[in-house]
């Protein structure tokens, strides 16, 4: 057995690089297609996404290639329109996550006063919650809407970014060029922006794909639970839950949005993995 050990060989490098290289290509192609669907889908939709066009739970036929949903709306049109919310909210949430995480991490790491432990202990408390639980608490507090979803995801995910940025900042702020900038009398803000920030960029960009994937999953999950975007919005997560009673009548009403979400998450993960592999090694932490 196990000849790899027997000869003390390392895992075959060329093949594994090939495998992940192929993954990256597949991921990028899929992602471009799905972003295309999200942006141009509503223009291609044959019917309105919120008008009934026939009897509920009708299996696929000529006029509606994916049949109708539990209210008799065209599933294809709703699938084509349902990607926008997922992708855009996920993107906005990721952006806010990085904005918040980088600011907190930079301040905590550079301003080494009582601010640092205060910020980092608060971050620890947020990390003591399961992600979805924190999301649900946020939704309980502020109700379900697009803005709350974006804010909730940022609240869940920013601690991870803040920790990485803080560690990098601690190390960089002891460097000579930072001390030189301090000696020149530059303001803290300018030092953080010009000297520190460009150097902490690497490790956080590496996790970008991973965190975008988590944003999408968290938002879709809250929508699936019926606590986020409200009907009649066409959203992939929401579509899966609202059609669950017609899984025998017209399975396409659930399977089509589920497949789209699955492809989206897989493609984001493939690209995210490639980023981590190239730029950094972290990524296990939320």
């Amino acid at each position, binding site marked *: *057995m*196990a000849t*790899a*050990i*027997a000869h*003390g060989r*390392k*895992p*075959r*490098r060329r*093949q*594994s690089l090939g*495998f992940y290289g192929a*993954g990256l290509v597949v991921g990028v192609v899929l992602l471009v297609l799905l972003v295309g669907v999200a942006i141009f889908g509503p223009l291609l939709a044959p019917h309105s996404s919120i008008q009934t066009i026939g009897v509920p739970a009708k299996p696929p036929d000529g006029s509606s290639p994916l049949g109708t949903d539990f209210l008799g709306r065209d599933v294809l049109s709703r699938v084509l329109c349902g990607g926008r919310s997922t992708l855009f909210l996920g993107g906005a949430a990721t952006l806010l996550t990085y904005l918040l995480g980088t600011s907190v991490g930079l301040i905590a790491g550079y301003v080494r006063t009582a601010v640092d432990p205060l910020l980092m*202990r608060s971050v*620890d*408390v947020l990390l*003591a*919650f*399961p*992600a*979805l*639980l924190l999301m*649900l*608490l*946020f*939704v*309980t*507090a*502020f*109700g379900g809407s697009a803005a709350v979803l974006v804010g909730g995801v940022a609240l869940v995910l920013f601690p991870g970014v803040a920790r990485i940025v803080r560690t990098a900042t601690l190390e960089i702020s002891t460097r000579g060029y930072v001390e030189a900038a301090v000696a020149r009398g530059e303001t803290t803000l300018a030092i953080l922006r010009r000297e520190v920030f460009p150097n902490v960029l690497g490790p956080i960009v590496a996790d970008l794909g991973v965190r975008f*994937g988590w944003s999408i*999953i968290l938002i*879709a*999950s809250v929508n*699936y*639970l*019926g*606590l986020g975007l409200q009907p009649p919005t066409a959203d992939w*997560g929401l579509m*899966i*839950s609202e059609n*669950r009673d017609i*899984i*025998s009548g017209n*399975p396409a009403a*659930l*399977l089509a949005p*589920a497949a789209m*979400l*699955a492809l989206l*998450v*897989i493609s984001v*993960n493939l690209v995210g*993995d490639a980023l981590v592999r190239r730029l950094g090694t972290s990524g*296990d932490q939320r």
Partner: protein
Amino acid sequence: MVASVEPVTPVTGDRIGTPHRGRRHPVLAFVARRLLAAVLTLLAASILIYLAASVLPGNAAEVLLGRNASPAAVHHLKVELGLNRPLVDRYLSWLGGAVSGDFGRSAVAVAEGRPDSAIAATLGRPLFNSAVLALITALLLVPLTLLFGMTAGVFAGRRLDYAISVPSLVFGGLPEFVSGTALIFLFFTVLGALPPVALLGATGSPFSYLNQLVLPVLTLLAVALGAGIRQVRSGMIDVLQEDFIRFARLNGVTDSRILLRYALRNALAPSVQIIAQNLQYLVGGIIIVESVFAYPGIGTYLVNAVQARDVGEVQAAAIILAAIYIVINIIADLVVVLLVPKLRTEL
């Protein structure tokens, strides 16, 4: 292959558990520090949970009674629920109750005038059901994670590795409700073999409806296995490249002995953390998986409470889940310290 999978049970032999001499009880001091930190974290978490549930737009009483309720009725319910007292007062008495297992009264039940409004009484069955679901999953999850992860690591870059790694990459990343929906379609709609929901009857015990547990457990496994396998795999690859493996090899130690005595034991320590992460994942994962299958556990309870805007129930479920999450974390820390002598000397 069978030979390499048997010793995955944690090694707690004498050699690893040698007591540390020299300083006075460093392990005890470490345990005490971690416990204190956990209690403080939980306290902070309870404040956050209480605040989140209290900033509810409007007011619990108004939300429950609807916009058209008379001011007198709203005031009456407020007094009934104690909402007219200051926030800090309310928090402290809630915390005092929660510590002794009293989570106050369900606002919805009070508003509906039901006599049995104590929240604590409604928590038992969902908690038990969730515990059963999580335990069954964990019992399968831990050995399977180690088996697949280590196999993939030993055969890294080969066909067997891809056969394990590619599915784990795909399924590990999917949202639970997507894989759950796919499983329902396959096993209920296509095969007609398993029920799509796990209602357990009115008073049913999960054990008398085992076939209803199959799909929820499979769904949780699909996600948790995917993440765990990849981490155990890379841990195994790291260990196999260590010098001591090479030296053992040069000394003529047999392959199976290298795997069983050298590699597994050293790959196990980081795996403890991975398994802990997996168990922590379950705490959050059951929230959505229970909803997918309408399984009457604490996750469904929480989601229903959020939907019904029952602040008291949200607080109770949230603090219990957060406490379990924190406890798993601390247990994992302690187990790692007990398993890895190197870490112990750094205490």
